């Protein structure tokens, strides 16, 4: 079953095409990887999906409903959660309050929101840090807070933007484990990632773009053997690990 | 038709001065990202300097530019260095604490002026204050024409300065991207200090050349601060070219408003423009021209 679809997405900045006619479909329950070299338009696609800026052309569908141009907060309400590449914690609030604020998107009372928050923090392994002020968290835990917060909005589809970047090996293992557990809950995931090890191990399918255009799509093995992909991107990075 | 042309001329002359006022504010806005709500008050200080020089020492207002501009440059430097720059390190919940600081500084300047000069109206009367010449049926106030050309002169000089000198380039770089400029070796603190000084000196020039045809009292700063921010917003926050167009627009709007609607609405017109811009042209003229 197709949960999510991007059709002929185009985004211009001034005269520059950051995303040019990209289309893909995401099945319910899969982990869908989006790869491409720096500046190839991955984050732009995320920002188009969550409507941070209007698209120039094309359409986006979620559960057969057209969501192009829907307000950002509405996108979250209908079940698409996201994290930011450059983390955006609610700095002066505690971790718990960060997650409670997110939990309110599906529940109304403080009591319920707190329950949802505690449950989500436990699931994401951040419970022991609940009283820490968000901006004093180290980068690894800030990234985890991003995921926790997005999870507290009870999404059906989760957009992860470079959640593994900047993590040390132990944290990386933890992140991979968490993403898998999220998938096991039945939540569909689209992940943008730079670290090949992560994306190749966890993705069910991968969509590769370069200069805002699709160059390949398929299971990890196919994509990693695709000539265009190797040329554009993997050639250097995959070799380095 | 005659009235129309006369109004047009008055508006353009006024607009040139407003452009100069707006230019200083836009520079500060561009580099520091803050609206300087003490801008009119700085102008007021320059006007008092001009008044004192003329009244007690008999120095011609135009000559006093050589005193008022450096003095205000220094005042601007001191304000930036000792009150605004330290705020960069202060952690505050309020994002607008620098703007708030300028409000406080404006209040202090106004009240000190009141302390020294009382609330009485002052003016500088020169031989050319009321002199006019005619082109056809249209009368030109000589002092306003001189003020206009001095304003244009300073504006052109500023553009040359921003485009051709090292400091000017650093200022533009800082305005575009603070972090990148920092990486390129621009001392951003020094640049903010210089920018605030320049902005203050520019508005000082406007105040000084306005003195022969205007009157002065401590509270004159407030209305001019409001005009300055209307100009800045009209021009697009931080755009120097936009500030010139913003100034001309406000000057013309005020002139036509005064002629065809009524003098009492002078101040309202600026605010009305402000609201219209917010509604229909957020981003000001910069949006239209991409300057």
């Amino acid at each position, binding site marked *: 079953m197709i949960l999510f679809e991007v059709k002929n997405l185009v985004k211009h900045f001034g005269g520059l095409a950051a995303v040019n006619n990209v289309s893909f479909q995401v099945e319910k329950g899969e982990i869908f990887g989006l790869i491409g070299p720096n500046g190839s338009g991955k984050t732009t696609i995320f920002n188009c999906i*969550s409507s*941070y800026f209007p698209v120039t052309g094309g359409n986006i569908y979620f559960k057969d409903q057209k969501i192009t141009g829907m*307000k*950002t*907060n*509405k996108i*979250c*309400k209908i079940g698409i959660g996201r994290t*930011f590449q450059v983390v*955006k*914690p*609610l700095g*002066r*609030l505690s971790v718990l*309050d960060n997650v409670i*604020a*997110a939990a*309110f*998107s599906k529940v*109304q009372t*403080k009591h319920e*929101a707190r329950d949802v928050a505690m449950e989500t923090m436990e699931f994401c392994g951040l419970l022991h840090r609940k009283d820490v002020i968000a901006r004093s968290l180290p980068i690894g835990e800030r990234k985890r807070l991003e995921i926790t*917060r*997005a999870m507290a*909005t009870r999404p059906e589809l989760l957009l992860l933007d470079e959640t593994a970047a900047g993590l040390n090996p132990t944290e990386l293992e933890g992140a991979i484990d968490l993403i898998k557990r999220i998938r096991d809950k039945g939540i569909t995931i689209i992940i943008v990632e730079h670290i090949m090890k992560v994306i190749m191990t966890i993705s069910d399918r991968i969509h590769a773009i370069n200069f805002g255009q699709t160059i390949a799509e398929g299971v990890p093995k196919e994509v990693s053997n695709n000539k265009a992909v190797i040329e554009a991107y993997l050639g250097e990075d995959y070799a380095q690990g | 038709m005659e009235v129309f042309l006369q109004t047009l001329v008055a508006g353009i002359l006024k607009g040139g001065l407003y452009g100069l006022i707006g230019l200083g504010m836009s520079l500060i806005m561009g580099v520091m*990202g*803050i*609206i300087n*709500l003490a801008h009119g008050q700085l102008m007021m200080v320059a006007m008092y300097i001009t008044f004192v020089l003329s009244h007690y020492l008999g120095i011609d207002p135009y000559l006093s530019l050589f005193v008022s501009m450096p003095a205000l440059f220094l005042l601007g430097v001191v304000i930036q260095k000792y009150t605004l720059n*330290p*705020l960069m390190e*202060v952690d*505050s*919940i*309020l*994002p607008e604490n620098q*703007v*708030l*600081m300028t*409000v*406080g*500084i*404006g*209040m*202090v300047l*106004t*009240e*000190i002026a009141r*302390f020294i000069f009382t609330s009485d109206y002052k003016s500088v009367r020169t031989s050319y204050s009321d002199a006019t010449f005619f082109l056809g049926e249209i009368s030109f106030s000589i002092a306003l024409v001189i003020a206009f050309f001095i304003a244009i002169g300073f504006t052109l000089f500023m553009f040359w300065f921003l485009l051709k000198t090292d400091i000017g380039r650093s200022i533009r770089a800082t305005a575009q991207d603070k972090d990148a400029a920092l990486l390129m070796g621009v001392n951003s603190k020094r640049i903010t200090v210089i920018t605030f000084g320049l902005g203050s000196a520019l508005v000082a020039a406007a105040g000084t050349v306005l003195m022969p045809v205007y009157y002065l009292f401590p509270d004159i700063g*407030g209305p001019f601060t*409001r005009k300055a921010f209307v100009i800045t*917003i009209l021009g697009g926050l931080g755009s120097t070219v936009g500030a010139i167009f913003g100034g001309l627009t406000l000057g013309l709007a005020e002139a036509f408003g005064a002629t065809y609607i009524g003098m009492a*609405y002078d101040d*309202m017109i600026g*605010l009305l423009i*402000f*609201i219209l811009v*917010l*509604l229909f042209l*957020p981003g000001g003229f910069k949006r239209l021209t991409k300057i």
Partner: protein
Amino acid sequence: MKKFMPLILLIILIIFPLVYQNAYYQHLMILVFIWVAIGSGWNMIAGFTGQVSFGDAAFFGTGAYTAGLLAHHFGISAWWGMAFGGIMAMAVAFPFGWICFRLRGAYFALASLALNEVCRHIATIAEPLTQGMVGILIMPTFVSKIPYYYIALALAVVSVISVQFIMQTKWGYYFLSIREDQDAAESLGIDTHRYKMVSLNIAAFLTGMAGALFMNYMGFIDPEVVFSLHDISIMAILVGIVGGVGTIYGPAVGAFVMVAVHEFFRTGFFGFFKGLAVLTGSDFLNIAAKYISHAHVLGFGILVVLVILYLPNGIVGDWNKLVGKLVPFKKKEAAT
């Protein structure tokens, strides 16, 4: 103990006018209470939601004029203005916020400043309605200050409690999220435009009520008084920042301090300079006393500068830092 402090304070405030029947201090306390309400409103939109308003006088004045005009034109008791004043202030806040919150950054702060000026101009120009600069005069309801005292106290308590309550609910969390990071807030399903509007309207309502009470209490208003940039809008900011931005009790502390400072200047350091002038017979001191009594705006300006520089989180927010600075010995003892 700390938990009961507000309650103890409240009891003291309730018995204060009964025990100490001094009209002057009752008057000052009424002003403090009015400022608690205004400060709580300002703190709601600026301190908790992060949208700094420079134009609280627009709401205050609207409230005051609503009460005054109802009494003046229709002979309705100005007390009705307490309810209508808040609602009218919201009627001003609604279209204003709807327009200005579509833009980010300094726009709101500047627009609120402009709103302040627009309201003052309208009140001045619309003479048939407002009597312009002549102002509105109504007959006070009570001769004694005590009824006003309790009404003002009630308003202050209601303001503080309602802010405290709201900050515990979804709205409160949403306000804080908007203050901390607007993009993050949107991604968490928060309609930032809508909740800024909610916050602004709460602020406007509290401020409008305070304005209406001011009308009732003072019996006279004119555009320069209630739409004053310095005496209302800037004072509201000062109450907020001196007390502590984004704290529940900050506005209460700030209101007390600021009314005291205002009075301090108005009376020439509580008559200190005047007394000194009489004592020494010095003309200079006499003139100085006269100046100082008019210098409260200068005092406010200096206070703005100092507070932002050295006490950015206010008395409540920086309490620990403040105590540490004032009592350096205590700290040293604790360290050894």
